[in-house]
């Protein structure tokens, strides 16, 4: 089967890279699933969890990352997910995100609330 090489990069570091069989992400016009052989694509991402079904050398499994805006681009079996901020679900401190969510709600800080919410959804999706 054709391989899909995924690079997940944040502004200040490379978050994850490896082989995958399917990547599901939410773009501004809806959820999109990309498998090997997809047509070249460049789309704007919504903040939300991105699910990567790993394959090949990295083994079968699922990697979920919280992506705060950004882009997805696919050409020739190479998929790049670009985001200013991106975190893998296992890097997320759930308690801290929950606290941040509560604080953001009480202070009506919408961007912070959305960030915390995205993190929690990513953790929930990885379970």
């Amino acid at each position, binding site marked *: 089967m054709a391989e899909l090489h995924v*690079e997940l*990069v*944040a*502004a*200040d*570091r*490379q978050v994850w890279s490896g082989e995958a069989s399917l990547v599901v992400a939410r*773009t*501004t*016009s809806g959820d*999109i699933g990309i498998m090997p052989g997809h*047509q*070249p*694509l*460049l*789309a*704007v991402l919504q903040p939300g969890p991105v699910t990567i079904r790993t394959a090949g050398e990295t083994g079968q499994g699922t990697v979920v990352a919280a992506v705060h805006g*950004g*882009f997805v*681009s696919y*050409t*020739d079996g190479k998929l*790049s997910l*670009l985001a*200013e901020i991106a975190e893998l679900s296992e890097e997320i401190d759930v308690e801290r995100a929950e606290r941040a969510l509560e604080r953001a709600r009480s202070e009506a800080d919408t961007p912070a609330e959305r960030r915390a919410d995205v993190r929690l959804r990513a953790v929930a999706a990885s379970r």
Partner: protein
Amino acid sequence: MGSQLRIYKRRIKSVSATKKITRAMEMIAASRIIKAQRRVAAATPYADEITNAVTAVAYGSEVKHPLTTKIERPRRAAVLLITSDRGLAGGYSSNAIKAGEHLTGELVASGMQVDTYIVGRKGVAYYGFRERPITHSWTGFTDNPTYADAKDVAAPLIEAIRKDTDEGGIDELHIAYTEFVSMISQTPVERQLLPMEIVDSAEESAEVFKRDGAPRPLYDFEPSPEQVLDALLPGYVESRIYTALLQAAASKHAATRRAMKSATDNAEELIKSFTRLANAARQAEITQEITEIVGGASALADATAGSER
């Protein structure tokens, strides 16, 4: 101890204290270069990917957008000059300022109005002293810039690029900063950020063309090429500014290291020559004392010899 000798001893002491300080600063700067270099390397994948994406849209669609469209008669340009907050870095800041001045001069010569945006206290001080207008300035993060800082810097620039030229917007965005080539070489550079330099991207795309042996892929843009470009624009500008800030920080640390190394060397040199002088002064003192004793003794001998007669 003679007064001359005491003065030399005192100067040796003060110079070696200075030497200790400069040596410490040299070592701090050296460790910071490594850190800064690592951050430059970590930021590279994102910068590369976003440039690829922009190139893809620029070539895959025929959208008119400030990111890619060259304006025929640009009237106003913005220059972003990146200097440091602190001195003690040899010619680092003045070289960066010189590059900025050169760039501004060229733009003015081509008939453009230039807005100046400055990062770093040194550049702000230079423009402030000459009472030249600064459109916007930022200080306080040049040693260790974060992506949030780059966002702060980019925000007014992006706003200006989006505005009409008649309402105070800009047609072109240039940046002057110091590129980190290696530990011993940093060169001030002048780059055009917006609109994207087509020459560069044409070469890049030629490379891509050769490598793949196939024409550029026809992208599917989601939701639309315009919207993708709109979303890419801030990311692109921020990422380029972030890279420039990181490069400038690494260069600054390298310049500091070099300046502090030569200061330490100079201090060593000074200590050496003062030690020589102190030795000579001590020897002169001893010689003088001996001469005095010999002279006194022979005077005494002469006196006693005279009385015996």
